[in-house]
């Protein structure tokens, strides 16, 4: 199949950094707390109160980032909407579960239940923008976003869509954070904070001056050996018509947890031992879909063709004056890996 070129046209975020802004590139906020909620924009500026009254934070954030991206690109109806979320409307799910157990299955709120299916966010985007096209939600832990990106890529390659709105969204509540802390996923000493994620981007097959970058490749694999990973990345580069030397930097999801960081370093050292290593979770925290924010950040770096010094992984001395290609590595439990290849158009 002849591969079409696919571009990230625009991207917006709400996170623990300033919302809907690239201020984090020059003046990033830093936090000491183990759990940091996202900084919300004034929702009222984007959503009428009557429409937003039933929506939890995750849905409002997803809508606002999506509406802004659509406005930025002058798009009324994207051809497809693909969403990645690991825990969905966690807040409402927890409230429904708590009430169900406390009230002995009586007098429960339909609003909390109807937003507890993971596709509520993606379908809200369809409902709000009155978009009838392809609409799917992926929910697979830390690679939920990459699965969405992959499906968006397929929709564009098959010609089912020419524009696709892709998002990665997850929220957090204290009680669930406590559980995650007990499992060792977050809240460990030396780790970045656990935070929240909302990121929407518009993918398109049309080239143009305003594109942030090209999505040159996206691949996922389960329990790969290092040989498998080498072969997969070689294949991805070959398909993109890229030499290894065109990968100017590698961005990983190191977060201060030794086991997590070890996975990344092994792979980065094996694949690209001599290029600068970048990190993003110290800016955006840890959460299942935070790689969506990593992808957004990488796209911004490529557009601006510069890397803020605080994004370098200090373990390597290499630095970069000009970016050509950027490889993002995301992994889950040392078993499932996702590789996203971005390139300056």
């Amino acid at each position, binding site marked *: 199949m002849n591969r079409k070129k696919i571009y990230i046209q625009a991207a917006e975020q709400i996170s623990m950094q300033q919302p809907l802004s690239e201020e984090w590139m020059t003046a990033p906020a830093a936090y000491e707390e183990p759990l940091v909620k996202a900084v919300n924009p004034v929702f009222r500026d984007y959503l009428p109160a*009557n429409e937003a009254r039933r929506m939890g934070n995750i849905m409002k954030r997803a809508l606002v980032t999506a509406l802004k991206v659509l406005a930025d690109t002058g798009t009324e109806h994207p051809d497809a909407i693909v969403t990645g979320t690991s825990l969905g409307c966690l807040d409402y799910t927890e409230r429904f579960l708590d009430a169900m157990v406390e009230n002995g299955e009586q*007098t429960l*709120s*339909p*609003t909390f239940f109807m937003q507890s299916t993971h596709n509520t966010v993606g379908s809200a985007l369809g409902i709000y923008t009155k978009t009838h096209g392809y609409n799917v939600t992926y929910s697979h832990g830390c690679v939920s976003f990459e699965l969405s990106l992959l499906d968006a890529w397929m929709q564009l390659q098959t010609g089912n869509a020419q524009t696709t709105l892709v998002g990665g969204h997850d929220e957090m509540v204290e009680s669930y954070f406590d559980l995650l802390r007990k499992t060792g996923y977050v809240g460990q000493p030396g780790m970045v904070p656990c935070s929240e994620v909302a990121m929407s981007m518009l993918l398109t097959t049309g080239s143009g001056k305003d594109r942030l970058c090209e999505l040159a490749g996206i691949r996922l694999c389960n329990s790969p050996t290092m040989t498998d990973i080498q072969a997969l990345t070689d294949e991805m580069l070959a398909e993109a018509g890229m030499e290894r030397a065109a990968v100017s930097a590698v961005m990983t999801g190191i977060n201060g947890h030794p086991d997590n960081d070890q996975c990344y370093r092994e792979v980065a050292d094996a694949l690209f031992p001599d290029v600068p290593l970048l990190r993003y979770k110290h800016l955006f925290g840890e959460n299942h879909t935070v790689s969506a924010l990593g992808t957004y950040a990488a796209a911004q770096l490529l557009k601006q063709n510069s890397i803020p010094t605080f994004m370098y992984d200090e373990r390597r001395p290499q630095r970069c004056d000009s970016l050509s290609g950027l490889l993002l590595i995301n992994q889950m439990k040392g078993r499932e890996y996702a590789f996203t290849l971005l390139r300056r158009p």
Partner: protein
Amino acid sequence: MEELVEELKKAIIETLNLEDITPEDIDADAPLFGSGLGLDSIDALELIVLIEKRYGIKLKDPSKSREVFKSVNVMAQFIAENRTK
């Protein structure tokens, strides 16, 4: 009855998260659904839960809800007649 009407207005605002609305804004005779406050089917279900929780009235037939929740006054009348709490 007046007390119940005021109580109901506050409960409706709270349950349905009508952030921008105060009890004074609600006309007790105006329709709650369609026009007036413009509530929908999910709101109707929330009100069914509300009257069970607060007043012990179990409304088994959801199609009756539009009748019972026609306006705040109609709702108050229904509650006054059927409450068990």
